[in-house]
């Protein structure tokens, strides 16, 4: 696995790199000392895994993740960020407390390798498919959401509401920009307001003006506009 270490302190990066020598399965492809540098390196090197410090000068680790379209696997490294870590849903991430203990690191890497095996389908430069994950932060709460769990996206002004489980946090992005990034075999632009996850579609009914009403598993209903309805029928009927 190709990993990127992101930490503003040289000694902290060095220490982690040294600890990782014991794990030949992890290849360190780069080290970044702030979020800007990291963002550039992520786009160039496309790593599978980030070891990410939360508190950094300039943008924080969270802000870096928010700016990424697709988020690689992330292990947070922090000295003491009780509150920041509490923000996460249980099991949503792994984190290492500095000074990092070798056994704890082994555990984390073990978990990551399992996760990675489970989603072997990822590739560089491709559009975002169901195996990819995104990072969503809404006020105090944060999630790593697998796209497979997102039922649909709804545009709301300059924001997009992301519907998954019982949550609907907002991300600051336009629906058009998101549509360009999503794999069209998995997601469908139903109207100006909605993008739906095709794997969640339960039933389709004819609607007014030649449109369609799509019912998703879980009970949400999303209207497909007349313009998109023909395209949608084509896709769903093989």
């Amino acid at each position, binding site marked *: 696995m190709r990993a990127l270490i992101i930490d503003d302190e040289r*000694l*902290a990066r060095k220490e982690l790199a040294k600890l990782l020598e014991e794990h030949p399965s992890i290849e360190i492809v780069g080290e970044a000392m702030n979020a800007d540098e990291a963002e550039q390196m992520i786009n160039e090197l496309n790593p599978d895994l980030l070891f990410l410090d939360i508190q950094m000068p300039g943008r924080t680790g969270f802000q870096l993740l928010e700016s990424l379209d697709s988020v690689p696997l992330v292990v947070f490294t922090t*000295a003491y960020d009780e509150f920041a870590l509490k923000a996460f849903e249980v099991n949503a991430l792994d984190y290492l407390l500095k*000074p990092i203990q070798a056994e704890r690191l082994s555990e984390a890497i073990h978990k990551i390798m399992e996760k990675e095996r489970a989603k072997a389908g990822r590739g560089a430069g491709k559009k975002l498919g169901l195996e990819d994950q995104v990072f969503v932060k809404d006020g105090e709460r944060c999630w790593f959401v697998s796209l497979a769990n997102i039922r649909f996206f709804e545009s709301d002004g300059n924001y997009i509401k992301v519907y998954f489980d019982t949550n609907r946090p907002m991300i600051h992005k336009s629906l058009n920009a998101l549509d360009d990034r999503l794999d069209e075999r998995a997601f469908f632009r139903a109207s100006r307001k909605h993008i739906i996850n095709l794997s969640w579609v339960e039933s389709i009914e004819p609607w007014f003006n030649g449109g369609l009403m799509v019912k998703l598993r879980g009970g949400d209903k999303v209207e497909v506009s007349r313009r998109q309805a023909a395209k949608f029928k084509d896709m769903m009927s093989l």
Partner: protein
Amino acid sequence: MLYAAVQIVAALASVNGAISTQRIIFLFYEAFFCFLLTHGFRSYMNDNRWLAMIMPRLIPRVIASVLLLGVVMYFLRIPVSIPLGLYNWNVALDPSNILGQSVYYAILFFLWSVFYFMYNYFERYNKSLKLEASVKEIELSNLKSQLNPHFIFNALNSIRALVDENPEKSKQAINQLSNILRNSLTTEKKGLTKFGDELKVVRDYLGLESIRFEERLKTEFDIDPASKNFLVPPLMIQTLVENGVKHGISKLTEGGLIQVKTKVENNKLNIRIRNSGHYHINGHKRRGGLGLVNTSQRLKLLYGNEAHFAISNENDSFVLTEIIIPHLHS
């Protein structure tokens, strides 16, 4: 002023019946003398620290001085009352009159003393409660933020990496960290500490942060040798320096400078801490703001209005924190 009013009322009460203009003039003189005497008495008590005396020593002193004041008061009014024609010399020098009137004044002065001591004891009690409360608050915030876990674990992490790279330096770092830990564990027992000791903690703290931030943190000291013996509240300067690192240096990708400068002028210690960064007046509503309010309150309680504390943006790239502390005699 209050005493003068009390004396006028008391004096008015002492004469029943017809009050002539002369009497009123006389009463004003009398009140004025009372005011002068109590004022003198008060400053005498302050100079000799009577408020700090224990009761068995204090009570005889008060009674003796009150009697003396009564007699003095009696003779002070003679040169006023005779020209006004209220008394003649025979009456004025009659021993029974002297005794009676003096005792009467002595009682007035005694009542005044009781009132004065009660007021001051109460005030002092109040003040010590406030001081205690703010010390407790500081202890608590020391436990929560001073002994900043983020700092300690980051320092430990840096030291761990340093063990391979520079064993000598890592040993030194362990000593610095243990000095800081010991200091923050013992400060709660100390009310004030020598500036020299406080400076050592600041140096250790900055030494550790330099390991972590490396070339991003530059430090400068310019210490007046006369400042070493001043007494300062423990960890106050360290806290301010730590704020400078936390809100200044650590937010800057390029890092910056922390400068500690002291100067002794007019028997006052002037401490100036400069750090790179920008002070956001409204951005400190949460914990940082509370820390600053705490600092200024702590100074006020310890030194009254003689201490000075200010934080401001010196220019676009530097924040200046200035403290002026008077010399306390231990």
